[in-house]
């Protein structure tokens, strides 16, 4: 029996983890659990940032409109225009993913040995015509505006786009932004550029003449199966196990649920109680921790005290340091429970 093994390393189309996009199948939605959000520069589905240079022009939702996804997929990212808006010159709209530099370092962009990439995805819109997006570096001073055509309204279409590696510019290769992959829902006159060529013009988000989805009230744009891989050929979408995909997402965002969590705690003074918890993944950077001021209850000798403020922080090593202001007896020991979700973000 012969066993074929792909042993190629680096900028190649590896059998596993060839897709540099995280959550390209739009399965993970830790923040919103499928709820619709207005796309005012917020993360929607995990790893997908919903950009609106002018507020309140579109919404984003996992499986918006409840259409049947392409065969083999169960989820998609759904965008819906909220008005018939004509972008001003500096506007740009759309979902994008900021890929960490570590995950594209092998492509050698910014050097003479830059590798080509191929972007593939399934897309469906209520509009037809020439759509577009862009690949940018972290400084947004290297851009490639890619076009694609949607031929039939309200029909899933599969697209592949091969892009020559950029031999110029600075492309980060550590824990900063490596690439930005942007799908345009609209862009103003100073945010578009020549299609299918690298440019040093700043902030190019789409080819000139692309469809403005935000220009039609109620227009829809759905996308899934997004894959960015090395090479000039699009391979089948790389399905990762749910747990693996979730873990990849948790490098950038995670949360502790409000129900069922108790942590041992100690009162360092009459109003300050400290506890500790662990979160699941090593994050990209020291995370921002968000929790409500009354997110914690301190239990001591059977009595419950709700926090009035929190300065909960986290370190890089999976450790959350719960630090709350609450009535307590100095030196007491008790337990803390969570009244609401604590979120940790180290997004790019």
């Amino acid at each position, binding site marked *: 029996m012969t066993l074929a093994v792909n042993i190629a390393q680096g900028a190649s189309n590896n059998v596993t983890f060839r897709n540099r996009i995280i959550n390209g199948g739009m399965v993970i939605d830790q923040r919103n659990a499928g709820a619709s959000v207005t796309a005012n520069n917020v993360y929607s589905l995990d790893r997908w940032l919903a950009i609106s240079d002018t507020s309140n022009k579109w919404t984003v939702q996992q499986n918006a409109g409840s259409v049947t996804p392409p065969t083999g997929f169960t989820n998609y990212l759904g965008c819906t225009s909220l008005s018939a808006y004509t972008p001003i010159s500096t506007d740009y709209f759309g979902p994008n993913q900021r890929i960490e530099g570590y995950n594209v370092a092998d492509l050698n962009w910014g050097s003479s040995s830059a590798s080509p990439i191929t972007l593939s995805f399934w897309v469906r819109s209520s509009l037809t015509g020439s759509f577009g997006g862009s690949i940018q570096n972290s400084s947004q001073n290297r851009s490639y505006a890619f076009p694609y055509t949607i031929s039939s309204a309200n029909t899933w279409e599969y697209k592949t786009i091969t892009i020559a590696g950029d031999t110029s510019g600075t492309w980060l290769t550590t*824990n*900063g932004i490596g690439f930005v992959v942007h799908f345009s829902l609209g862009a103003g006159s100073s945010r578009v550029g020549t299609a299918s060529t690298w440019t040093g013009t700043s902030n190019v988000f789409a080819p000139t003449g692309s469809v403005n989805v935000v220009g039609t009230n109620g227009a829809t744009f759905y996308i899934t199966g997004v894959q960015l891989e090395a090479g000039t050929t699009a391979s089948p979408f790389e399905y990762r196990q749910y747990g693996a995909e979730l873990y990849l997402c948790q490098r950038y965002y995670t949360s502790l649920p409000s129900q069922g969590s108790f942590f041992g705690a100690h009162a*360092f*003074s*009459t*109003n*300050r109680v*400290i506890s500790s918890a662990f979160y699941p993944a090593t994050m*990209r*950077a*020291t*995370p*921002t*921790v*968000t*929790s*409500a*001021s009354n997110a914690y209850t301190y239990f001591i000798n059977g009595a419950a005290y709700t926090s009035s403020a*929190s*300065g*909960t*922080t*986290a370190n890089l090593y999976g450790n959350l*340091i719960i*630090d709350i202001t609450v009535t307590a007896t100095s030196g007491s020991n008790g337990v803390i429970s969570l009244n609401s979700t604590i979120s940790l*973000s*180290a*997004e*790019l």
Partner: protein
Amino acid sequence: MYKLCKTLTNQEFVIRLSDNASIPFDPDNTDYQAYLRWLEEGNTPEPAEENQ
């Protein structure tokens, strides 16, 4: 608006008052980068309280 804070071991961080987020002084954290831009615009955070 932001407020300076200190952990029990006197490590500095800031609270973003709009959503009570604790932002570490980590140059790789994008919220901290936004805080630095806010400072560059001439703004000043509320002072930290002394540890108790």
